[in-house]
């Protein structure tokens, strides 16, 4: 049974690609066979974050047009045996993706026995974003605790409830989860940032992960290594927890409270 997961947000720059790279790596590291697809046609980036940009020969649109086979276009990850990347095309043709073409590729992945297909959605609500969510069984809505991101997420939730195959065919709702990124417990404690509970209350859906703000995210993308593989980082632990929750484990949220300072640190400042 294959599960199709869309990583989406509406707003750009909130961490969709970082999240797609880390969740797919985390799932694959647990032995699942995973394909992660970049739906951002014209602005390919997942390959850079995954560190396989120099191995892209064929892309998603090439497969749809029949220029190559799916096998030729899937880039096998060098770190994790069961992880495959399908890069976005760099074409400027907005209509390069079609629902039929996407369906064909997904069906072939399902027939190939993939456990998870992670669809990295582009920002916005145009065609690429629409097709990334259209076939999804489950959606991860990446949100920053910030007004424009929260509002756009709500818009995306509306689209998930109406403009997906499941909604149109009446096959029940797409499972929806929030994943908060760039979370700063210190600023939440100071009343400068909305808390997990605030965002959850406004949007009304459950939280599958909270990723703390950290310089490790930039370092990881600089290096082309999904941040979940940086064992020393809290970000990696937070993503690993989210992977566990995706697989149905019950794991309490971490990194949502400010670390308590010891007496000396408080007196001398540290």
């Amino acid at each position: 049974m294959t599960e199709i997961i869309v990583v989406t947000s509406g707003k750009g720059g909130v961490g969709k690609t970082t999240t797609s790279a880390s969740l797919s790596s985390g799932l694959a590291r647990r032995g699942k066979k995973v394909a992660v697809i970049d739906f951002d046609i014209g602005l390919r980036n997942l390959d850079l974050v995954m560190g396989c940009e120099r191995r892209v020969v064929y892309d998603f649109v090439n497969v749809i047009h029949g220029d190559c086979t799916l096998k030729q276009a899937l880039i096998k990850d060098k770190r994790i045996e069961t992880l495959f990347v399908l890069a976005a095309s760099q074409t400027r043709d907005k209509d390069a993706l079609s629902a039929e073409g996407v369906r064909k590729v997904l069906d072939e992945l399902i027939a190939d026995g993939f456990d998870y297909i992670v669809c990295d959605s582009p920002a916005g609500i145009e065609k690429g974003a629409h097709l990334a969510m259209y076939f999804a069984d489950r959606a991860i809505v990446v949100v920053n605790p910030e007004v424009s991101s929260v509002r756009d997420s709500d818009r995306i939730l509306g689209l998930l409830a109406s403009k997906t195959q499941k909604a149109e065919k009446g096959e029940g709702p797409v499972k929806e989860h929030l994943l908060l990124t760039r979370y700063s417990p210190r600023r939440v404690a100071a009343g400068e940032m909305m808390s997990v509970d605030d965002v959850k209350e406004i949007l009304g859906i459950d939280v599958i992960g909270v990723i703390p703000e950290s310089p490790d995210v930039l370092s990881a993308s600089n290096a082309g290594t999904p941040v979940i593989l940086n064992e020393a980082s809290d970000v990696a632990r937070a993503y690993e927890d989210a992977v566990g929750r995706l697989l149905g484990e019950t794991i309490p949220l971490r990194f949502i409270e400010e670390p308590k300072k010891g007496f000396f640190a408080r007196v001398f400042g540290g």
Partner: protein
Amino acid sequence: MGLLALFKRQPKSANIAKERLRIIVAQERTARGGPDYLPLLRRELLEVIRKYVNVDPEAIVVNLEKEDGHEVLELSVALPEKKPAAT
């Protein structure tokens, strides 16, 4: 800054964000799911009514309610109060 201002509690910006979002999200959710022509219908109605009565743009409310199986399009126009001197 006066001494009093020091004691007056400033609302935290996170609370302001939450309140603003709560209102706008609720508003946008009611508009969602309705047909796309509602805003245009509202604007054209306003133009027609304004030929006869000078109503406020906010005075027209167009609502689509779903009630077991059928949909009700509700229009509400608040007419301005009559000025006594008007002839």
